[in-house]
């Protein structure tokens, strides 16, 4: 199976869907001539021309608003917001317009758009370019939020998102673009709302997504060396959420650790914790642990940034706490 990079997987997904469906087009800041801030749209303008790969003004409100309008007019836009931190400027268009239109028009319109963006820390580019804001969007009814961690999932999920009729926020991770993974040469899709079990185990369940899913796998390996069998789940989609898979695992292990790169306070994982206690309270053998980012703006200092963001060793420690082991 060919091994390609995460950013290549994104590019391939876009190209394949543009070949497949002439309504699909790409727009955003520097996505055409420059090829995207993280090179995820490299070569598309040469392949499809400037009418289908469009550079826009530096205005996230325009990008999100134009994408919403185009989608309602029958196009299938894939618009890029360079950093998830800039979604604040596109907020009204996305959560007030795109998210609600189908509902408020009684189903007479749909908004089949994908907003591609990226988030997360790791490059020491400070508090305006390093956040994980997925919780804000999961909160809004009417949108899906997808956060793949591997090239395989990135490609398969992006293709599914482009074909889906709902407005979708597709959040990539800046530290994953150059990661490599096996991706089939032939076409495939990854369905929305299906978590992936990265490692099976009976002692503790570790649930994560995006880059933290890789750190959770690392933690799973480290725990295995100490004889603790962790079950590691990569959610892949936060909405729709594969709660069945999480509950099934918690019922088996009785212990749950959640890892997220977003701020701890009102983190998306709190929603999972709430649902676990609703549906599996009697299966719990220990308080649920969450490993999240520090509740402060993401620091620029490499030392502080590293400390503020969950590492594998912190996930290992949390897993051990649920097992009553000394950390």
């Amino acid at each position, binding site marked *: 199976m060919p091994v390609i990079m995460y950013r290549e997987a994104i590019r391939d997904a876009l190209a394949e869907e543009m070949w497949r469906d002439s309504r699909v087009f790409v727009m955003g800041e520097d996505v055409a001539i420059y090829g995207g801030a993280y090179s995820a749209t490299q070569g598309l303008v040469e392949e499809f021309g400037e009418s289908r790969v469009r550079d826009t003004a530096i205005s996230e409100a325009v990008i999100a608003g134009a994408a919403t309008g185009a989608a309602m007019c029958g196009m299938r836009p894939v618009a890029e917001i360079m950093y998830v931190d800039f979604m604040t400027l596109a907020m009204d268009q996305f959560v007030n317009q795109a998210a609600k239109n189908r509902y408020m028009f009684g189903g007479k319109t749909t908004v089949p758009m994908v907003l591609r963006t990226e988030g997360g820390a790791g490059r020491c580019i400070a508090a305006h370019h390093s956040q994980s804001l997925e919780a804000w969007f999961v909160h809004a009814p009417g949108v899906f939020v997808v956060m793949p961690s591997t090239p395989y999932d990135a490609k398969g999920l992006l293709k599914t998102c482009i074909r889906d009729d709902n407005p979708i926020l597709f959040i990539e991770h800046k530290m994953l673009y150059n990661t490599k993974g096996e991706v089939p040469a032939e076409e495939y899709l990854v369905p929305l709302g299906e978590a992936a079990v990265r490692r099976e185990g009976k002692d503790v369940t570790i649930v994560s997504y995006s880059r933290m899913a890789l750190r959770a796998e690392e933690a799973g390996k480290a725990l295995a060396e100490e004889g603790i069998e962790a079950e590691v789940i990569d959610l892949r989609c936060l909405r729709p959420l594969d709660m069945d898979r999480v509950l099934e695992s918690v019922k088996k292990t*009785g212990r749950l650790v959640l890892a997220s790169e977003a701020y701890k306070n009102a983190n998306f994982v709190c929603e999972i914790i709430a649902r676990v206690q609703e549906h599996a*309270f*009697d*299966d*719990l*053998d*220990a*308080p649920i642990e969450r490993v999240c980012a520090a509740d402060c703006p993401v620091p620029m200092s490499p030392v502080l940034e590293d400390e503020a963001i969950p590492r594998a060793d912190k996930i290992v420690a949390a897993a051990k*706490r*649920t*097992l*009553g082991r000394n950390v």
Partner: protein
Amino acid sequence: MIQKVTLPKLGETVEVSTIERWLKKEGDPVAPGDILCEITTDKATLEVESYHRGTLLKILAKEGQELPVGAVIAVVGDPGEKVPKEVLAEAGKAPAKRAAQAAPLAPAEVQAAAPPVAEGRLKASPRARRRAKELGVALESIRGTGPAGRIVEADIEAAVSPGAPGSKGGARATPLARKLAAREGVPLAGVSGTGAGGKVMKADVLRAKAAPAAASGRVVPLSPMRRIVAERMLLSKQTVPCYYLTMDADVTDLVALRAKLNAKGEVKVSYNDFVLKACGLALRRFPAANSRWTEGGIERRGAAHVGLAVALDEGLIVPVVRDVDKKSVLQIARETADLAQRARSKRLRPDEYQGGCMTVSNLGMYGIRSFIPVVNPGESVILGLGVIEERPVCRQGKICARQRMTLVLSADHRLVDGAIGAQFLEMIRDALEEPQKLVD
């Protein structure tokens, strides 16, 4: 604090009980709800639960010892606390005034008291609590190894595994094996386990149950029920001067009526239910049959309570239907079905198998034509029912086939003379031959 554990009163007529088996030993921690020991009364084995929290300091009654209700059988207190001499002196004695004393114990089956109040907060995970409930383990006796010393599922599992101080009754067994053993009357202590860590599994219990039959000449210990059945039957044969009356009943109409009632499907009515009703009416008519022999004189009994013998694997028990004369056959049917079912699962309360005036015993289902039943001491008569079958009968000079059943009445001659007994049986027969009157 020193707390006395006394022998609970398990039924209206129970004055004494026997300690069957101690499940806790001296020095064991005990908590409210823990089973301290098993006691035997008239045909039932019941568990004695602790109401107190602390350490079982002293056991004052030996296994096998028969004691009056209210007697002090054990002392619970703080670990290492000294038991005062005056408490030790009370061992085995019935209290002078039982009413003045708050009963600190209740048998598990009749306990309706509020749940024990935990002292301080006991930390256990929801999962551990669920498992503890499944295995019947008291959380109070377990040390937690989870986060912040919390009791977790693994601690519960460990507590019931071999050698664990908190394991129930000493024997380690799966919940299924425990249930099966209780139902089959197999003492778990004597079963060697083949499960993990010597845990007794279902298969082990089944093997233990089959073993006595295979090994001839082996002495099987008496179960409490077997011993009681033996004692009472011997007492009857030695002290009750019986005579026996035999009579055939033509139950052709009864068979048809029962079929008709059961076709309606409301309640399944058995022949016994009609017989119970007929007995109730006969008891009311013949006070001599509804009486009890006592040293002071003959006790006339007002109500007509009739027992129905129910066979169990390890013996038999006779649940009693109260006031059968006043109840409809359908109502009797409902009650007997419920009583028989609970008798088989050993869930009868003592007051449900005591106080009968007479007993009905039916072996018809085994094809027995007639048999002579043994009077249950304390009752005056017992009626044995044989099989209902088609037999040739002479009627007005012609032989015809009729549904017939043979009744045998064993009667205590001290209470019921032959002529009375005969009329008593005749009345029952007449009622069965005109069954419509029983249901009208």
